């Protein structure tokens, strides 16, 4: 087990190193210069050069890579070129929005999808099932930014129940914070819920065909009892896999939704940092995301083991 953990750790750090090189290389070849961007149309070349020096952009590629990578390893993410504040602070600010948003959306989609999937599986082939499946197909097919726009139109512009976007900050209190994240979370969650419900349903149907369900029925369990007590847990593995993927997606992939709701999230930070060539922010945030994804994968693996005892050894 220790050896397993060690090899796992080694492959994890190798992945991270590979990722850091890939990111750094990609960013090196991006045309455009943060200093030129910041100084605009009228700046003289010497001014740009002066700013480049000030930002520490004039060293050799290797020196800069090592500088950055060793900084990362010690938890020092560097200073943003444009904002001039520590990247770690920026990221922490954004995570305070993105992380709760992702968790909120995930919780919503799970809370919708699991019962719906269960319900549809129990009524497989009947009208209710067909209706639900048609609805999920539609949920997957609708582009989420389109759906988000619609939500804003109805709930913010027409009904004025919530504001059209923005985030007051957690210091304004838990209630306003959650209220501000509700529409974006719904916009993110519904397509995900549609996918999850389908996965849940087909996993359940798969397990319902297993011999042990028949064993359970032979003991005198009703159809519904067998579904709840035996099929559900066995169907969780594919559901967990999808949940893991969805969390990673939600954390960084919400850029478009963040745009529609003008939320100060991680996705927009990257987007903006790329346009402004705030490269150190891009590098560090992408690294952080890669790390988060690897971590989530690891957690999902742990969750597998919690669900399925057959996976506990190894």
């Amino acid at each position, binding site marked *: 087990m220790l050896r397993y953990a060690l090899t796992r750790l080694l492959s994890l750090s190798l992945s991270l190193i590979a990722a850091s090189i890939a990111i750094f290389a990609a960013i090196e070849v991006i045309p455009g210069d943060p200093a030129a961007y910041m*100084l605009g149309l*009228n700046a003289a070349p010497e001014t740009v050069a002066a700013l480049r020096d000030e930002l520490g952009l004039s060293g050799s590629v290797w020196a800069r890579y090592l500088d950055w990578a060793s900084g990362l390893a010690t938890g020092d993410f560097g200073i943003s070129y444009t904002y001039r504040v520590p990247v770690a602070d920026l990221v922490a*600010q954004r995570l305070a929005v993105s992380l709760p948003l992702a968790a909120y959306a995930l919780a919503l989609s799970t809370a919708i999808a699991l019962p719906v999937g269960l319900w549809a599986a129990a009524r497989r082939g009947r009208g209710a099932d067909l209706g639900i499946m048609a609805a999920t197909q539609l949920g997957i097919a609708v582009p989420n930014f389109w759906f988000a726009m619609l939500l804003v139109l109805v709930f913010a512009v027409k009904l004025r129940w919530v504001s059209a976007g923005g985030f007051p900050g957690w210091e304004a209190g838990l209630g306003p914070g959650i209220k501000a994240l509700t529409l974006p979370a719904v916009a993110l969650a519904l397509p995900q819920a549609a996918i999850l419900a389908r996965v849940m349903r087909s996993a359940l149907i798969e397990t319902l065909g297993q011999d042990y369900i028949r064993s359970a029925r032979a003991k005198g369990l009703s159809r519904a009892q067998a579904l709840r007590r035996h099929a559900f847990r066995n169907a969780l593995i594919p559901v967990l896999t999808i949940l893991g993927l969805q969390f990673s997606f939600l954390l960084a992939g919400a850029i478009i939704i963040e745009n529609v709701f003008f939320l*100060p999230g991680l996705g927009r930070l990257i987007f903006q940092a790329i346009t402004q060539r705030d490269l150190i922010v891009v590098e560090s945030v992408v690294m952080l995301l890669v790390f988060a994804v690897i971590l989530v994968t690891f957690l999902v693996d742990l969750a597998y083991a919690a669900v399925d005892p057959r996976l506990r050894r190894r």
Partner: protein
Amino acid sequence: APPDAITLGMVLEPPNLDPTSGAAAATDEVVYANVFEGLTRFAPDGTVVPGLAASWETNETATVYTFHLREGVRFHDGTAMEADDVVFSLDRARGPDSTNAQKALFDGIDSIAATDPLTVTVTLARPDGAFPFKMAWGDAVIVAPETAGTAATAPVGTGPFRFDRWVHGDRVELVRNPDYWGPAPALARATFKFIPDPNAAYAAMMAGDVDAFPNFPAPETLPQFEADPRFKVIVGTTEGETILAINNRRPPLDGIRVREAIAHAIDRQDVIDGAMFGYGTPIGTHFAPHHPDYVDLTGLSRHDLKKARALLAEAGQTDLKLRLALPPPSYARRGGEIVAAELRAAGIETEITNLEWAQWLDQVFKRNDFDLTIVSHTEPMDIGIYARPDYYFGYGKPDFVALMDRLAGATAPDERSEILKAAQRMIAEDHVNVYLFQLAKTGVANARIEGLWENAPTQANDLTAVRWAD
């Protein structure tokens, strides 16, 4: 009582809050006249009026300026603003390590001296009648030596509002400065909220999340606001000459006939209607139409397909293929599509490439690797760029340079006016670029808000006079 707080919408977030380093218009839109002040300042109508200098005088030849500072001005950290700070600020801006984006403003300065705590004398190398105008720019604001280094994140100025906090990616908040030297502003608190998505901007306005959006990004929705009594639409002028820039270095674009053909191929009104939904004023040269010295030269490049084709045939360019590089703003992206279609009608094929700003700066602006591009030049009174042969469109004709040199030395209003008119005519006749339209300032605000600038002589959201009506 009427509310004393306001939330303003802005499309772009400033990268930092130091106007003396970096060119971002968004920085000035937050801090100009609110947090930082210069010796002089722009009034809403574009004239230059006293700022921290209550008055100034100049010698006969316009080479020595003496500024008399106001009394009792304090920085937000409580320290007094005196002549030393002015000397420091101007020296810092023109020094060798300066990262001031408009360093050229200070080029003419020979020396600066603090005669006494409230008097500053600036000696210029050459006569410059426009020096007070230059000192009104956001890049020339006065900062204190102790706090200049941290202005990017914690700006300390002398203005009517103090910086309160900045939630990155979301908003900047300012609060009233109780120790302001001038009349106290009506507002106690102002929030600048950053909303890049035009649709989100619309929704935020409609939902009442934002009280005013001085540069509203979706002109197509303005009729909606006009029809709604809750809002008022403010349409004004800006200093933004929007041009189809032509790389004058590159054959066959170095030939005046080809450039003229391009100019005749384009229907300005189509571009204004299609890209800006009718907001914008056609221009025929690189000059703001609201300026008293403006000459209407649009006749020189009237939409005339036949003429365009004839000129091309004359130049032997019957199957011309050009690249059109477009930066992100919608005037460029939408306008570019229209321009491309109109050029095609005249027999010029164009290939559109959309670029981010950083790419545009690198490829078009720095390496001059382009044929055509669309961009808006938002600096006030910037016809001087045509005198720079190394500037991206590469004009710099000696006659024009001579004209500009004369302008720098001229102090008499009549003479200046005459030179400016000649310059306008010269670049229009040479068809250096295609002059499309003057960008309009289209703002939306809650109908009860008063005192917002109608026009934009510089990029600013001056809040000193803004108030809620009862």
